[in-house]
């Protein structure tokens, strides 16, 4: 479980996050939705310590991330798997090397054990036998799946996903969504997905947080979202004619 309390963040005069508090539950796919520039990515980056907070607390299963020393922060980060918007695969490494990289850095497993784990993760994301490919040879969906494999190779307790569906076709996006949800249930991890893809919201939205202008405006699940009277939320979620018709009918 990840808990944030009274998070405040400013970039100069831009007040990006205003007194944000929330609990991201374990074993659930926690979605953060909101317009571009609403503070979603900043929140994710605060959770993993890439941005410093002005005030507030970030607790990983009760451990205050910002109160512990850098060395302990690094150890905690080893328990976090992160799926970046563009995949962030190391372009000078093959698929196998990318996934094996955290194992090389932090474990004392033998080469055979590491390879077994890599192959297991590749199988899990349905990319068996793609070990030798370079990132430049992968499609957008494959890149995301390799990034998921790398994120789960260390068996993380927390999985953070920043716009996992950006740039993907709807079919591939659903595959990625389902994969994230399956992994969350299978390993009982705390997953946070940052998205503005409404298909994702309807597909895997177990616990949804709507951020608007740096504040949390609404919390609920996908069923509650369909029946919400929150104007800002409705303006955001039902922006397209298709979703307007879905709400009406």
């Amino acid at each position, binding site marked *: 479980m990840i808990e944030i309390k009274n998070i405040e963040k400013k970039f100069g005069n831009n007040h990006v996050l205003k007194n944000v508090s929330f609990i991201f539950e374990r074993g659930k796919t926690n979605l953060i939705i909101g317009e571009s520039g609403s503070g979603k990515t900043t929140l994710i980056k605060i959770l*993993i*310590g*890439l941005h410093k907070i002005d005030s507030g607390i970030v607790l990983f299963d009760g451990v205050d991330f910002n109160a512990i020393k850098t060395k302990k*922060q*690094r*150890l*905690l*980060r*080893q328990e*976090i798997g*992160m799926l*970046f*918007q*563009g995949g*962030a*695969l*190391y*372009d000078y490494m093959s698929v196998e090397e990318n996934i094996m*990289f*955290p194992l090389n*850095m*932090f474990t004392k497993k033998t080469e055979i054990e590491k390879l077994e784990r890599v192959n297991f993760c590749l199988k899990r994301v349905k990319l068996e036998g793609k070990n030798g490919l370079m990132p430049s040879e992968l499609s957008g969906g494959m890149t995301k799946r390799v990034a998921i494999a790398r994120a789960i190779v260390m068996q993380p307790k927390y999985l953070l996903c920043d716009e996992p569906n950006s740039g993907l076709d709807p079919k591939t996006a659903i595959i990625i969504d389902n994969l994230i949800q399956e992994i969350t249930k299978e390993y009982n991890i705390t997953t946070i997905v940052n998205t503005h893809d409404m298909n994702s919201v309807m597909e895997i939205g177990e616990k949804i947080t709507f951020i608007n202008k740096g504040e949390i405006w609404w919390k609920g699940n996908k069923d509650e979202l369909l029946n919400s009277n929150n104007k800002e939320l409705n303006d955001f979620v039902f922006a397209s004619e298709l979703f307007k018709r879905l709400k009406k009918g």
Partner: protein
Amino acid sequence: MEKVGLNSVTLVIILSFFVGAVVSIQTSINMSNPLLPSYLVGLASRDSLILEFSPTMISLILAGKVGSSIASELGSMRVTEQIDALEIMGINSASFLILPKVIATVFFFPFLIIISMGVGMVGAWVGGLSANITTADFMFGLKYEFIPFYITYAIIKTIFFAFIISTVSAYFGYHTKGGAISVGKASTAAVVASSILILLFNYILTDIILS
């Protein structure tokens, strides 16, 4: 090591050979007075190459090649979130990415400069031949009143320059913000800043070591 050093060997050899040859020809043209002995061409070429061309000029050229490569590599990694990915894994990205580059340049650049000196002198000999300087005269000048400390001085300068190139370029690359254009800007800024610092430290080190 391969990226910051070995890939530059060919460039260093080509540059040093031709500059050595040109230095030799120009020196011989400017020493047309019959009272000046022809072995001075070898001596002047030697000192020009060891004291200034090999350590300083080659370092400036390497600032363009290696420095821009380091800055653009790190800049690309920054804008594609590869550096963030390292941080998330709990890896100190700065020491993981930058330290090997600093060590490789500081270790390898002196070898490049020594190669440059050797090849430059071969070029100077060839240039001298075309300017009617005999091999015997050239070799005599090359050995005449040779001060071995000049080599030490050149290597000390090179080590400083290598450190400047790798750290300044890494700084600009590592702190890139934005997209592809920012990577290009970071790369250019790295080369400009490295070059200016090399020239400044060339003056300071020369003043300290040789004065």
